[in-house]
């Protein structure tokens, strides 16, 4: 790049290789695309290289390796905090009054801190696993034959963009990679371009996020105007923040938050996410777990230094409230819609929205605390802020792992149901379109047939529900507790706090419903009865993620709940692992404060007892006679069977009620958006096009017409006599002369 590197270079062995994390996948894209175009249908390309899947895997593996090395470096010392290097990208200048212009430059660089490290691990790790899964999923389906190279090319670009967004050192480059990610999601959702539904979903995803992006872009412009830069090292400097008008800053951050709403599918820009299920399953996992939706959370988490600055103390609480409330609304709304979905992937999509809502609430709460408490000087407040922020980030981690696993597991189910259907109806292609391999109505009793998948699904569901000790439990309890902590201080927060508490019970219901409908009970039709086990490309990532999710207690003990940049809360801090786990356990289950003690058990009761109980009483039951399942499913299925037999009740009254119908119609939000698009936007633009031709161009045509008439009159002046012409020339010259004379 044109400029030289800046002076703040911190020398660190691994971090210097950070650009490779972005460059390797990015360069893999044209390679895969080119080779795929040239060697398409070549057997080596197809079977050995998996149509580019192996090339992608190598690139992602290298990216993961470098990422892990950087993370290890960082956690060991915290020394390479901040800008690793930065280069000038474009130079320009602005005039602010005064005697000369002020030069401005926008740079590109790598920035590493605790937020980067968390997201970097999530993105690199999940992208790698999803890549393994994709090889097992995409390359075994003949609908993808000879076009998988396109998938892998778009996939690696997507990963490169995500990793770039996480690593870049300014809001400008965050936005640049953010947009490239948007493009990739558009291409991937529309992968099956021949399906009108996919084409429409792709457009919807790009358009909806674009609306958010416009606000983000304007927010960035406003932020630039406040700081004269978008580099983290400048905008996060407390000395610079102290010079900024809080109201303007809140406005800019609010605008940027709208961008996050679009990207993370929060109300009211959430409509694209369920439709994005049109993409192939690895894409769903990618968009929903590893990358795109986390981008919005990352953006909000990045705003922490603004909220935490002493000069902003108490000035940005309104925005924190808005962030928490949007999260709360989405958490409840999406959970409600998930109640009535029959499509396996759509349940997960709404569950994603709901969990992202949790994380937004968690972030909003943490930002409120950072903005209100005197945490720079008071160590008790400091702990509170760190733990609140840590809870949100830890939930991001847990949710990404669990949801990645759930999507891959659901993909595995769908894949096998689809194959079973093909197997059964191989000579009968006629009803292919009728059969919906994603509908839970075509599943049931799969626990005996797909043990690994069912286990992964079980663990993932438990993590999302927040069953004690598993995965998301640690972080979810933290979010709920802190939301109530703030609600006690600022009564406005009672709303998001109540939402997340209610949402906990709703999550318990819909996740249990999903699991028992798919894996417990009897097969719903003959297709489900013929489902077979899945291949090892698919099993491996499921296995790894199950392990990660189950070991979240270790992570919690290691200090993941105190995710902060200072060594005081570093990994394996002075306590050590055993003591850390004991501390977390004690903190969670035997809180000294009576309020939080009760709150914890209320939340556990809602998410682990009330919600699952309701679901089990309605759905599932025991497996088909003679079917055997792994021992760890037996208690679950037995419990399900017992509840089902004893408490089953007829819910048809509720299922057909107005609310249920509204939920099935996604609360009619999509419908009104469509209506607005068709009636207002399209109608207006058609009118505009008409006005342009009829009125604006019409006026020109009028002039044309008139001038033709005039010209016939003028033509009569063409007498052919030289004397007449000379007369006209003389008059004309005089007129021009007088004109100039008069004006000058």
């Amino acid at each position, binding site marked *: 790049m044109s400029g030289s590197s800046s002076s703040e270079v911190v020398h660190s062995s691994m971090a210097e290789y950070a650009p490779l994390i972005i460059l390797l996948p990015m360069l893999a894209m044209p390679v895969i695309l080119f080779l795929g175009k040239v060697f398409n249908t070549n057997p080596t390309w197809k079977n050995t290289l998996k149509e580019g899947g192996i090339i992608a895997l190598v690139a992602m593996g290298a990216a993961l390796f470098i990422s892990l090395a950087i993370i290890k470096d960082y956690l060991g010392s915290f020394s390479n905090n901040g800008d690793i290097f930065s280069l000038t990208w474009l130079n320009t200048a602005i*005039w602010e009054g005064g005697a000369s*212009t002020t030069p401005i430059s926008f740079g590109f660089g790598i920035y590493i801190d605790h937020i980067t490290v968390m997201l970097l691990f999530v993105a690199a790790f999940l992208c790698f696993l999803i890549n393994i899964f994709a090889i097992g999923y995409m390359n075994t389906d003949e609908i993808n034959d000879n076009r998988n190279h396109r998938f892998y090319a778009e996939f690696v670009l997507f990963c490169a963009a995500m990793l770039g967004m996480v690593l870049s050192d300014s809001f400008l480059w965050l936005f*640049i990679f953010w947009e490239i990610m948007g*493009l990739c999601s558009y291409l991937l959702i529309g992968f099956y371009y*021949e399906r009108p539904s996919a*084409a429409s979903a792709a457009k919807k995803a790009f*358009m909806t996020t674009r609306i958010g992006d*416009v606000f983000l872009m304007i927010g960035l412009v406003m932020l630039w105007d406040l700081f004269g830069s978008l580099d983290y090292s400048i905008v996060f400097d407390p000395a610079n923040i102290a010079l900024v008008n809080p109201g303007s800053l809140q406005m800019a951050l609010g605008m940027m938050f709208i961008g996050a709403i679009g990207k993370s599918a929060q109300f009211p820009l959430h409509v694209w996410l369920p439709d994005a299920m049109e993409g192939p399953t690895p894409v769903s996992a990618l968009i929903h777990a590893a990358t795109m939706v986390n981008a919005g959370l990352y953006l909000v988490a990045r705003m922490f230094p603004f909220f935490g600055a002493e000069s902003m103390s108490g000035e940005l609480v309104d925005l924190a409230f808005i962030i928490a409330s949007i999260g709360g609304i989405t958490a409840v709304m999406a959970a409600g819609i998930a109640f009535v979905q029959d499509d396996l992937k759509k349940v997960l999509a709404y569950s994603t929205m709901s969990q992202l809502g949790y994380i937004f609430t968690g972030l909003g709460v943490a930002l409120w605390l950072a903005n209100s408490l005197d945490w720079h000087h008071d160590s008790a407040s400091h702990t509170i802020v760190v733990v609140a922020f840590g809870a949100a980030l830890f939930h991001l981690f847990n949710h990404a792992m669990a949801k990645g696993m759930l999507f891959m597991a659901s993909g595995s189910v769908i894949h096998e149901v689809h194959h079973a259907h093909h197997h059964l109806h191989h000579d009968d292609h006629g009803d292919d379109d009728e059969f919906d391999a994603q509908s839970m109505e075509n599943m049931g009793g799969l626990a005996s047939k797909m043990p690994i998948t069912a286990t992964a699904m079980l663990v993932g569901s438990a993590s999302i529900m927040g069953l004690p000790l598993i995965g998301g439990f640690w972080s979810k309890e933290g979010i709920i507790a802190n939301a109530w902590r703030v609600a006690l201080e600022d009564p406005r927060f009672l709303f998001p706090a109540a939402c997340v508490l209610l949402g906990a019970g709703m999550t318990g219901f819909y996740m249990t419903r999903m699991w028992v409908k798919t894996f417990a009970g009897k097969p719903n039709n003959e297709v489900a009865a013929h489902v077979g086990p899945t291949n090892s490309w698919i099993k491996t990532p499921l296995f790894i993620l199950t392990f990660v999710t189950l070991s979240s207690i270790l992570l919690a003990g290691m200090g993941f709940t105190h995710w902060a940049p200072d060594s005081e809360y570093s990994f394996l801090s002075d306590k050590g692992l055993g003591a850390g786990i004991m501390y977390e356990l004690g903190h969670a289950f035997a809180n000294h404060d009576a309020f939080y003690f009760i709150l914890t058990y209320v939340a556990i009761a809602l998410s682990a007892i009330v919600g699952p109980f309701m679901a089990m009483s309605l759905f599932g039951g025991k497996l088909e006679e003679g079917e055997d399942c792994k021992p760890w499913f037996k208690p679950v299925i037995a419990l399900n069977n017992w509840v089902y037999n004893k408490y089953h009740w007829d819910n048809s009254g509720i299922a057909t009620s107005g609310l249920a119908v509204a939920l099935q119609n996604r609360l009619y939000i999509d419908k009104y958006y469509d209506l607005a698009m068709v009636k207002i936007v399209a109608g207006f633009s058609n009118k505009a*096009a008409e006005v342009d031709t009829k009125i*604006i161009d019409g006026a020109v045509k009028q002039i044309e017409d008139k001038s033709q008439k005039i010209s016939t009159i003028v033509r009569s002046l063409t007498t052919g006599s030289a004397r007449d012409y000379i007369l006209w020339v003389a008059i004309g010259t005089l007129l021009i002369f007088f004109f100039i004379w008069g004006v000058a």
Partner: protein
Amino acid sequence: MQDLISMPLVGFPIIASLIIMGTISNMSEEVREKLVNPIRWAVLIFSLVLLGLTTTMFYNFFGDLNGFEGIAFNTYEYHIRYNWVESLGIHWSVGLDALSFPMVWLTTLLLPVTIIATWNEKNGAFYHPLLLLMGGALIGVFVALDLFMFYVFWELTLIPMFFLILKWGGEDRKYAAQKFFIYTFTASVVMLLGLVTLYFLQNPLEPLAHSGTMTGRTFDISSIVSHAHQANMGGNWFLGASMQKIIFAMLMLGFLVKLPAVPFHTWLPDAHVQAPTGGSMLLAGVMLKMGAYGMFRLPIALFPHALEYFQLVLMAIGMVSLVWGSIVCLGQTNLKKMVAYSSVSHMGVICIGIATMQPMGWAAALFMMFAHGIISPHLFAVCGAFKHHYHSMEIGSMRGMAKHSPWLATSMMFAWMASLGLPLLAGFVAELMVLIALWHFLVAEGWSVLWMVGPALVLAVTAAYYLWSMQRTIFEGGDETQPPASMDGQPIPDIGNHEKLAMFVLAMFTILFGVMPWIALDMMNDWSIQIFEGLIMPILGNFNGGV
């Protein structure tokens, strides 16, 4: 210094094309048919030599990359001046600066690309030389440093374009060619009136310097600019405050019609829809930029007072073009017309950039001219291929292109994405800079921030019309797609190698200038700062007491 411009860049293309066309016009059809191939190869090689020459200039003879950076206000590289009509002060004066050079380079880039993209155009023996003539005339406009010369080349560009539309155009070509000619010609007559008034009113400050002239006046732009600069800086508005405004308005009218800005834009969709692909590519790529170029070269450099006076008007025109252009795009059913209106919208960005009166906004406007010059020919090449292969221009007449014509579909998506301002492609940098400059200007000058609603709306609407059109062309269909009725049951072909090559070159440059914008932006930025610091800033400081 050697004269590297007059003959190599301007004279030879025009003379060569005239000789070729003159020679073959007397030949019989059969002989002409045989000559098509040699002629187009000759024209292609010639245009590649031109590209090589300008690229060499880009690198300042392999010295540093910054050949056009940092040169002082009103000085020019390769500046040559011969007397032409001495008694009237007409010169043949040519030179390059960071304002004109990117446009000249762009013209020489687009010439071979256009020739390759439309390699098999019918009646090629005339067609390809005509493109060369067009290129020579366009370069002439950009290198001219004499008002007379500038006007001559300005009008000269109309002639090849007129014939391109008339002879190679669509069904309504006669109407479109006439409308194009009369509309823009009328506007340039107003501009001419402005130029002549400027010529007569200029104060013969140094009579001795032009003692050879009968009128004591000159057409030489650099002399006029330095006179104007002296007068403006000295506290007396050049030509007087009110006269500045009048001439400014007259010149701007000519340039705004060429740009085109709403409401003077309706010639553009007609011309584009009827023009052949090559004509459209040059028209959108370079010819529209003549308007923006002219604004910077004359009215802005000469009449800073008038610029400030008309700032609001210019801003309003830019906003209206931007918003109206994009909304009308959404209502189009004709692919090429949609792309044409998107040009109107993008040209609005240039107007806004100028109206911000910020070096950043001006650099952004210059970069927009350049970036749009690379992207829009790509758009029109795609439209041309669409028309050529599917015999239809209607959006939705051909669906599932991704299956039937994957190359064209890929090209289309790339061009569309570039045009909607995807980061790391050329268009984004200019958009971002205009937004920043606009916001900064609004806040600093206390204008209402509601002006920001326009660009914000357009960012969304632009995505909407491009995505919607892609949904109905690239996507959908699949196995059930019936070829459009216009295909008459013929198999659906993908684009040929010529088109692939041309689009690939444009795509590569779109990426190059998107990832490494500084290659072109640094010189534009320097130029903007030069003209701003040298011309606008002291004057605003003197007369307004600063912001």
